[in-house]
């Protein structure tokens, strides 16, 4: 079973919800930190790194003495990663998606493939659960290959994906294959605006999802009104509580620093499980 924790807006509490759910789920759970541009679940799930794998992508290298300057590769590339001023092409790795088409269309056999490192996937034994963390190399612009590699490295029966913020390719890459999506939001106009965008993505992907309201305040009905109108289920509300902020700032799990919140996280987890098996 695979559950993704997403939000659209950054800083709503995705990682807080994901790490606490993983610990409630127990030792057999695996949390995958798919926010590979700035993974931070390891702050809460400390442990030893048991393995590290490099993620790389095959990119072209041009053998200039064989290149005839025919432009076949330049015209093939849909991402403009290869351009030519008449002679051998110039290659811009940042734009390359690693499809390998340029090598196939080159009539002179002047293109070979070389590995470009994109990042790492680390497996961490956090004791209470397993953490798989993707980490993008500085200067690499697309996190998608590292997200895919991190997800592929999670082999447990119960896996939680901690999604990156935003609603573009990195989110879509994280959500693919998930059985259920928990959307963490906050009762602010920014939180609602990005929740709406994320719901649009999930509906296009035909995914099952529910909402968790973080920093919830009784006086505020912004998210409830939206969810009611859109027929979206609210699976739980984490109240605005200074003690939670203090635990977070100290790098502690809510369910350990404040055991009174264990039933809340357990009920959110159980609600997810019920929705998947229903």
């Amino acid at each position, binding site marked *: 079973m695979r559950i993704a924790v997403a939000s659209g807006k950054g800083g709503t509490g995705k990682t807080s919800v994901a790490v606490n759910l993983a610990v409630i789920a127990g030792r057999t759970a695996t949390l995958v930190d798919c926010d590979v541009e700035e993974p931070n679940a390891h702050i809460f799930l400390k442990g030893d790194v048991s393995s590290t794998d490099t993620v790389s992508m095959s990119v072209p290298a041009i053998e200039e003495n064989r290149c005839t300057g025919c432009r076949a590769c*330049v015209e093939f590339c*849909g*991402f*403009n*990663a290869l*351009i*030519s*001023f008449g002679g051998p092409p*110039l290659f*811009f790795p*940042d*734009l390359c998606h690693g499809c390998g088409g340029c090598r196939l269309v080159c009539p002179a056999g002047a293109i070979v493939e070389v590995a470009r490192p994109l990042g790492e996937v680390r497996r961490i034994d956090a004791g209470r659960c397993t953490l798989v963390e993707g980490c993008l190399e500085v200067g690499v612009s697309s996190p998608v290959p590292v997200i895919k590699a991190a997800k592929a490295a999670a082999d447990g029966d119960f896996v939680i994906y901690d999604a990156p913020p935003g609603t573009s390719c990195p989110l879509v890459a994280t959500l693919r294959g998930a059985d259920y999506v928990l959307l963490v939001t906050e009762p602010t106009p920014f939180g609602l605006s990005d929740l709406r965008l994320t719901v649009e993505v999930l509906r296009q992907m035909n995914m099952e999802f529910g909402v968790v309201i973080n920093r919830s305040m009784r006086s505020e009905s912004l998210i409830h009104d939206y969810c009611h109108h859109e027929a979206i289920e609210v699976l739980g509300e984490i109240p605005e509580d200074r003690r939670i902020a203090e635990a977070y700032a100290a790098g502690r799990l809510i369910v350990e620093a404040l055991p009174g919140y264990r039933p809340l996280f357990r009920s959110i987890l159980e609600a997810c499980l019920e929705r998947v098996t229903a």
Partner: protein
Amino acid sequence: MKIVFTMQGDGRDGLMDRRFGRAETFLVYNSETDERGLVANSAVDAAMGAGLKAAESIVALGAVALVTGECGVKALHALHRAGVKVYSTDSTTFADALEDLRQGNLREARPA
């Protein structure tokens, strides 16, 4: 010598576009004959790498220099390799930018 300026819309209003790869039109100015021609930028809707595609286009047009607002690092690198000089301008009109270029008031952008 052909010098390319980046223009808004179809270029007829003489208004510069600060962007290079996403400018709709290139104004090709011939400094020997004072002729001006307008060419649509085919890279304007490219999903990625518009600046590189545009660099390829202006080299094919025979440009030796480019006058624009901002040129991204990849396009700047490519144009440098092709021997095209890149000048940055804050002018909003072609007439002002051309005058600044003639007076030697424009700074040349170089790859870092």
